[in-house]
């Protein structure tokens, strides 16, 4: 009995992977110009040069250029957020941590907006996003250490909240100062949206996400050891300081490129690891891939909903906060905020 449960747990990433792939294909058909699946198969076959079907230019444009980048960017954003959340929670031994709450997202947004306002190219935007995100994360950690309100982990969240709101006020300030007319775009981008995803963005987020994901997955054993506690981890011979830094940098790298591409999408990094933990338990060897896949599924699902159900495309960030916060409150209630330290 136990064995079969374990078997299912081990197979969860595989099942989720298949589910994610089929969702990607299914979501190709959704949108303001619905195309049915036989037609999609025909178009794809046509594009691959296998069959010869009569397809219109419009259909080719949609299936080749418009929907795939958007769908993949959404999936990869979700993967980045899910795995970052799981890694941060494991590293901090705190179930209430996520990129948004520790200030990374706010800092990255500030850096990105700064780059837009002073008119840098896309590479500059990403670099400044990264610097902003890293700066914010470091300020949060320093602040939490300085404040040192009993180490039940909530100090970290308070610190993250302060840093995050400071960064967002900075964003407000820049928005205000901006004379280049980029304001509506900035506002809409920051609310979190995949509209306007193209191949450049896809290239960017796929590079960072895949590199980050690989490194984190390679570190999965060590994250397991980190969640024991610093003393135990050191006794086993892990350089916890160095490991922490690596994780912080990788997470910042992934999250800031996600913000640069698709704005602030909060709460995904918090709830996805919890759901993943319910599915496969606390072992990071399974938890990390499961969180990645679940994150991809969740964000892709949200994006598909906004572009098909609602007419005017509600920003994904708004939708994720709308759905995410009640779930978070529920988790908060269930876990009684204890943090895992005690």
């Amino acid at each position, binding site marked *: 009995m136990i064995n079969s449960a374990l078997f299912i747990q081990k197979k969860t990433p595989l099942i989720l992977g298949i589910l994610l792939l089929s969702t990607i294909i299914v979501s190709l058909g959704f949108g303001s110009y619905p195309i049915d699946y036989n037609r999609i198969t025909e178009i794809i076959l046509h594009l691959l040069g296998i069959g010869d079907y009569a397809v219109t230019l419009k259909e080719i444009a949609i299936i080749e250029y418009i929907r795939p980048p958007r769908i993949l960017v959404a999936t990869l954003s979700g993967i980045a957020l899910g795995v970052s959340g799981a890694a941060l929670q494991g590293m901090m031994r705190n179930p209430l941590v996520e990129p948004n709450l520790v200030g990374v997202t706010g800092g990255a947004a500030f850096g990105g907006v700064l780059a837009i306002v002073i008119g840098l190219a896309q590479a500059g935007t990403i670099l400044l996003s990264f610097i902003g995100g890293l700066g914010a994360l470091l300020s949060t950690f320093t602040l939490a250490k300085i*404040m040192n309100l009993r180490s039940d982990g909530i100090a970290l969240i*308070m610190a993250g909240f302060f840093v995050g709101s400071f960064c967002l006020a900075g964003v407000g300030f820049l928005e205000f100062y901006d004379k280049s007319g980029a304001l509506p775009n900035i506002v809409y981008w920051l609310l979190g949206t995949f509209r306007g995803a193209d191949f450049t963005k896809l290239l960017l987020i796929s590079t960072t996400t895949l590199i980050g994901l690989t490194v984190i997955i390679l570190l999965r054993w060590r994250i397991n050891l980190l969640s024991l506690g610093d003393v135990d981890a050191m006794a086993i011979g892990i350089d916890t300081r160095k490991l922490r830094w690596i994780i912080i940098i990788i997470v910042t790298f992934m999250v800031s490129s996600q913000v640069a591409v698709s704005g602030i999408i909060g709460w995904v990094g918090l709830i996805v690891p919890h759901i993943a933990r319910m599915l496969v338990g606390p072992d990071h060897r399974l938890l990390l891939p499961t969180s990645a896949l679940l994150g991809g599924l969740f964000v892709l699902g949200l994006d598909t909903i906004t572009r098909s159900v609602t007419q005017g495309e509600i920003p994904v960030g708004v939708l994720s906060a709308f759905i995410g916060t009640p779930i978070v409150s529920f988790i*908060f209630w269930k876990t009684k*905020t204890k943090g895992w330290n005690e």
Partner: protein
Amino acid sequence: MRQNDKAISSYIKSNGILTILTAITVISVIASLCIGTYPLPFSKAFEIMMHFIWPWSSDYNTEWTAKEIIIIELIRMPRVLLAVFVGVALGISGTALQGMMRNPLVGPDLVGVASGAAFGGVLAVMMDMSSYTMVIMAFGGGMMGMVMTFALASLSKSESNGMTLILSGIFVGAFLMACVGLGQFFANDGQLNEITFWLLGTLTRANEERVWTIAIPTLVGGSALMFIRWRLNILSLNDTDAMSLGINVRLIRWVIISIVAWIVASQVAVSGIVAWIGLVIPHFARMLVGPDHRSLLPASALLGALFVLAIDALTRTVIQEEIPIGVLTTLIGTPIIILIFWKKQTKGWISD
């Protein structure tokens, strides 16, 4: 006997501080009337203001040009008064909340009142309601936000170290702001502009009607809080002690919550979300006059007014551009609050 002397001397001291604060506030109000893109001499501003508020004053002095009178009475006066009332409202409600919750990390924008009021206000804007209905909606939203926060906090209470409340506030606030985002999304272009600019916190839309909208709740609610200042002191002991002194803790809590929601709702309705003041000001006031709510409440009110006046004066003169005041208060307020936490290694008061 000695203890008594000490109490009396500290009473005199805090009364002195309050008098000085009042004087500074009055001077700042007049000074704010002088500054701006069209500067006026202090004495002239004072005379025009006195003429304006003195009910049986004579005709306008012929030395004053129509331009000067218009600037003082119609343009700067509402704005300055609005700034004063916003500061008073936030300072006093922050103090009341902190005293009531025995938690130094609480502020109106952290327990969900401000975002709830914003949500109510956005709904009102979208339904094109009048400004009075807007205050009512904002009040409803603010009460809802605060009740949600308290409910969530008490549901998930483990060791009540006060942090639970703030975390709940963050969650509820994020949820309500997502609701605001949905509202913004469904709003048409004109409404969107209005909502976005208003929510960032602004004093630019000051007019007589808005001054009244915030003045009445602030004065009435503020006086009500002043009336129960003794009980606030007793509440900050702790529940058991307060009950044994014959205070109906539950009732007092609800009264304070409703008053704060009313004050903050009117503040949000006229000037949007002005963050961090309600959290920072009570700490400064406590440094000046100590933890006794009899002097703490008025000191917070005056300091709040001074702070908002100063920030508003800054935007009007140095920066010369109308930066949303909520943005500025966050930029200034967060470093201050961080400094305070660092200095005090804040523990929440419940523990000790």
